[in-house]
């Protein structure tokens, strides 16, 4: 039994069909066309080609020793990927710890240009998955952090105790950094995430 009369049932079906048609059109315009354009027209930059070769095939399932028990190795445990390079694993740690919620990897055409280097073309993120280029910017942008802060020792110290490092650098105020400590990460994880950051040039 469909509604009070056949006419009302027909209107329901026609209405739903109209929704489907309009929505399908919007998906063609805002998904199919631009995604096709991005996949066919974007060529990797030198940096994009280098990094994409390091990244695991699939980062969708990010977990390796999350509770720091020391039982898991320095390789990626994920759905399909398997072991990868230290830089690739560093990105996994970067995702797993949620670094990207505060640190963008996409300088903008503002004063960023002066502070953090030039904005990059789309090929810089070639094959990156998932792409963690932009979120809130609670911390500094990290797109060119490897150029800005090349020292591995400094970066490892900074990941462990960021606020103390900033104070040791001559901070005059307790709130000059709001980054939490990551001293509890294993050496493996710290090394990997720092290698990943140093590769961001």
């Amino acid at each position, binding site marked *: 039994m469909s509604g009070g009369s056949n006419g009302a049932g027909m209107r329901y079906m026609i209405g739903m069909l109209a929704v489907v048609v309009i929505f399908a059109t919007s998906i063609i315009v805002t998904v199919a066309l*631009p995604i096709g*354009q991005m996949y066919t027209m974007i060529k990797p930059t030198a940096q994009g080609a280098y990094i994409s070769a390091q990244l695991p095939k699939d980062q969708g399932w990010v977990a390796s020793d999350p509770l720091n028990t020391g039982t898991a190795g320095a390789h990626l445990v994920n759905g399909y990927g398997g072991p990868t390079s230290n830089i690739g694993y560093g990105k996994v740690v970067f995702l*797993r710890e*949620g670094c990207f919620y505060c640190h963008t990897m996409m300088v903008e055409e503002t004063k960023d240009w002066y502070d953090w280097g030039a904005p990059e073309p789309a090929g810089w993120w070639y094959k990156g998955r998932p792409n963690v280029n932009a979120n809130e910017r609670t911390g500094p942008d990290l797109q060119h952090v490897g150029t800005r802060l090349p020292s591995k020792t400094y970066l490892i110290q900074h990941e462990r105790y960021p606020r103390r490092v900033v104070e040791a650098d001559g901070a005059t105020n307790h*709130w000059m950094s709001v980054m*939490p400590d990551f001293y509890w990460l294993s050496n493996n994880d710290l090394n990997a995430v720092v290698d990943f950051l140093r590769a961001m040039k």
Partner: protein
Amino acid sequence: MSANAASLPRDLKPGTAAKLAFFSAIVWFCIGTIYGGLARIKMAYPDFLAGVPWLTFGVLRPSHVDTVILGWITMAFAAAIYYMTPALCNTRLWNEKLAVASIWLWNLGLVVMNATFAGGIMTGIKYHEWTWPIDMYIMFFIMVPLALNCWMTILHRKTKGIYISLWFFAACILMIAVVFVLGSDDMGWNGIASAYMTWWYAHNVLGLWITPVSAAIAYYTIPKVTGNPLYSHRIGHIHFWSIVGFYSTPGAHHLMAAPIPEWLKSFASVSGVLILIPALAFVTNVLLTMEGKWHLFVENPAIQWTLTGVLFAIPLNVQGAFQQTRAINWYIHGTNWIVAHAHMALLGFSTFVEVGAVYYALPRLLGKPLFSVALARWHYWMTAIGFMGFWTALTASGLIEAAAKATNWSFSGMLIAEHPYMVAAVLFGWMIVVGQWLFLYNMIRTATAPVTVPEGRKAVATAAAG
């Protein structure tokens, strides 16, 4: 007591699923706001709970966002759909058992989801941090039962027309399912396309699910409580069709500074401004429906909450329509301004409307009066003042961040300047958290209160007993 097969009910009592969903949603609301409150403290005092791997900001943030979206807002929508669809179709829910099973599985899924986040198992896609097994779980145990129950109930309706709330319920479930699949990590988007699809998905969760279904709930609650018919069916059509037409397109406005196709940015920006059409059509329709009944705004908790939500939709949409244009976006992009705006949508508009629906529907489902109107007022003012303070603090700190982005001002100097606002956000944020526990307490007391016999029937009841 004989328990033969014939005396067993063939289906559950109508309203079982809605009741269960409303209560589950309120519990997840309390949990989700605590996640948010803890994350907020970390923004002001980073050493708080530092060194606990499963309580880092990177765990609390997705737990907060995904719990309030999936556990509170979406489950409250399900409750509203399970309550309002049969009421508007003048029939019973198509399959009450399926609905109840879906809500229990839903609760289990949320526990699993939060546990995986605590263990660092997440995709890194905003609003979609859960991994693919949970994607499948959500699709088959949550979305499909909800869609089936909604569509089949409408198909089996005993009324002739279909009221506007039902258009939104039926269409939005369909659209959000498509958005959910296309935006999931399983699609394997990579490169800049991955960033684009993340935001296409994230924006459509708001535009095709959270805001329109909230509007649909307001379209039910306001005429029902005031007794006025909806002001205009025609304006309702404008609202509905412009949502379907324009609101699925502006996702790219989150990436105005990214190297995505320029035509896409312009297209998204223009359709982003066109969002004002459905938004203002909705607000106009609801506010004009209130004609002659404005005293209910202060007298009736359901109207008070729903209308406050509708009024928050005005600044929400005006802000949203213009902040995404290139002229403004370059300045405030990536700052706390956006966080404030997102809370205006999810907390200011959507949550207020859903809480209104809870205050309307839950006492009716339980067949009991609200335990305490005074507590409901405390809940209202804690949430309203908490939200407005929170929004103001975050907007102010967003403007500080924007100034630091645009002028010759150091990043650390910006952090020092915004610290007082971060502290204010903690205080106002916890006002919201505490308010929701009052809400839960009030509703539990309402449900557990003994059934009172009305004064006039007491004599009859006593006589029958004697």
